[in-house]
């Protein structure tokens, strides 16, 4: 691939592919390449810890576009190749086969890699992460002969896989280092509810528990040893303890970085004509009072991808998208709108024992996020409240007979708190 591209995209996940597909949708007729480290055609990641792990959908059903789409739309999809170096002065990248590729614009969209546990036995076979299609293919192969599975980490990945594995009849133990599951993203009532649900479904849960080692029979994992001394039986283990942004070559090229490649609201990095989108980026978030956040979500990757595509095709800027997240476990749909980062109050709306309720997050009396469990209406109506930074009648939040947007006292315009931070220089 000794040539020059108008838009060279590093990474073929949700963010990178969105840049390419949106560019074509907006009528951009320049040359586009996606360099993707994985051999597989671009696929959706959320099903990896859900339906694809369970085996109810196959790889064809989770593809981002049909395999023929890329060539049909003049997008060079380079599979199984990585960009190892970026030279922003001479405007070329070097791929892992040593080829130099010139560019006019780069979009860095390489996502993140699972955090590893630096402990004895980490190199045993049968210890898995859930990030790529091949990760899950290996996990599924291992599960065929596993009856007990230990899951390290009580976040979305850990809990979603726990739910699937219980469905598959496995003996499941979830080990969480903090005092409650989902601690990083949600308030106590959500954690309490999910802990109770998982226990009801037969999951063994160990909170305040850290792993000191993986123990093996031969070279295959057999147990996970906790700090308290307990050995959790594990014919296979799954580790979901967060991710590390993938940005080495950009950082080496001089891009500003702080827990992610720093980008502004237009996804510009500090390097000329290099943008970045998705999990590998951190940016000032208008929905978190301008705090620099790294959002790990499909919605963020796609909306950032659209932002870059609009800019590169000369379309007007869109309003910043309200962050949203979702997680399906058993028959429970957790949908989140907004970012609860820095909240002052978390108010429960509805009765958790009814398995349909929400938690409304407030900061200085403004609604900043809503977690909804089997409560789509609160999620949908919460969006407008988060967007407008609405003040609502807090004393009435628990009254589910009144829709959330009926409680608004004052909804300032978003424009009044637009944040502009320059990631350049």
């Amino acid at each position, binding site marked *: 691939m000794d040539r020059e591209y108008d838009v060279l995209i590093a990474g073929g996940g949700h963010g990178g592919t969105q840049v390419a597909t949106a560019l*074509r949708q907006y009528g951009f007729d320049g040359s586009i390449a996606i360099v993707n480290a994985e051999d597989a055609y671009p696929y959706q990641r*959320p*099903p990896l810890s859900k339906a694809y792990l369970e085996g109810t959908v196959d790889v064809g059903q*989770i593809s981002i576009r*049909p395999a023929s789409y890329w060539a049909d739309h003049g997008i060079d999809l380079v599979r199984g190749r990585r960009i190892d170096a970026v030279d922003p002065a001479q405007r070329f990248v070097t791929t892992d086969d040593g080829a130099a590729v010139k560019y006019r614009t780069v979009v860095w969209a390489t996502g993140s890699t699972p955090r590893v546990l630096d402990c004895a036995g980490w190199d045993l076979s049968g210890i898995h992460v859930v990030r790529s299609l091949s990760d899950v293919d290996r996990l599924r192969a291992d599960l065929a002969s596993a009856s007990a599975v230990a899951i390290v980490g009580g976040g979305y990945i850990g809990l979603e896989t726990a739910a699937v594995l219980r469905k598959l009849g496995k003996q499941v133990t979830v080990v969480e280092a903090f005092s409650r599951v989902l601690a990083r993203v949600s308030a106590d009532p959500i954690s309490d509810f999910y802990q109770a649900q998982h226990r009801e479904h037969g999951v063994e849960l160990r909170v305040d528990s850290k792993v000191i080692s993986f123990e093996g029979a031969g070279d295959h994992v057999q147990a996970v040893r906790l700090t308290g001394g307990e050995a959790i039986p594990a014919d296979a283990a799954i580790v979901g303890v967060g991710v590390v942004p993938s940005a080495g070559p950009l950082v080496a090229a001089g891009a500003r970085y702080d827990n992610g490649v720093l980008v502004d609201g237009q996804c510009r990095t500090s390097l000329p004509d290099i943008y970045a989108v998705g999990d590998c980026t951190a940016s000032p978030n208008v929905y978190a009072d301008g705090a620099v956040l790294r959002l790990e979500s*499909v919605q963020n990757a796609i909306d950032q991808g659209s932002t870059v595509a609009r800019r590169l095709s000369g379309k007007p800027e869109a309003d910043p998208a309200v962050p949203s997240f979702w997680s*399906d476990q058993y028959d429970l749909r957790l949908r989140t709108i907004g970012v609860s980062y820095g909240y002052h109050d978390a108010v429960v709306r509805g009765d958790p024992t009814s398995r349909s309720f929400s938690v409304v997050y407030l900061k200085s009396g403004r609604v900043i996020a809503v977690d909804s469990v089997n409560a*789509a209406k609160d999620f*949908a109506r919460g*969006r407008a409240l988060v967007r407008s930074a609405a003040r609502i009648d807090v004393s009435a939040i628990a009254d589910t007979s009144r829709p959330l947007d009926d409680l608004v006292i004052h909804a300032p315009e978003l424009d009044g708190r637009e944040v502009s931070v320059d990631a350049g220089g």
Partner: protein
Amino acid sequence: MLTPVADPKSETAGAQVMVTDRAGNLHAVGFSEGRSLMETIRDSGIGDIAALCGGTCSCATCHVFIADGWTERVGPPVQDELDLLETSEFFSDESRLSCQVVLTAELDGLPVTIAPED
């Protein structure tokens, strides 16, 4: 009336849905039974549907209108889907989330319009 423009890739396909995109262009899109309407539209290359959540009824970015006269055959949304739809400023009684509409042979010819972006 717009004249349907055959999508070259669907010429050999039997069953089709007739999709009007946001620019007002009409596309005849072939489908396989059992596929969702959202997947069918997305895979055809019509880019107007974001479908952020991949079809799990979690994002409401695949809103379409089912033409009058077909809503009964397509069926009504369940409450969960309706809760997401009804906050759209373009919500009507022809609204559906296309990820929740599974295409069957009897929906051959279904006229669908992609809802404006909220």
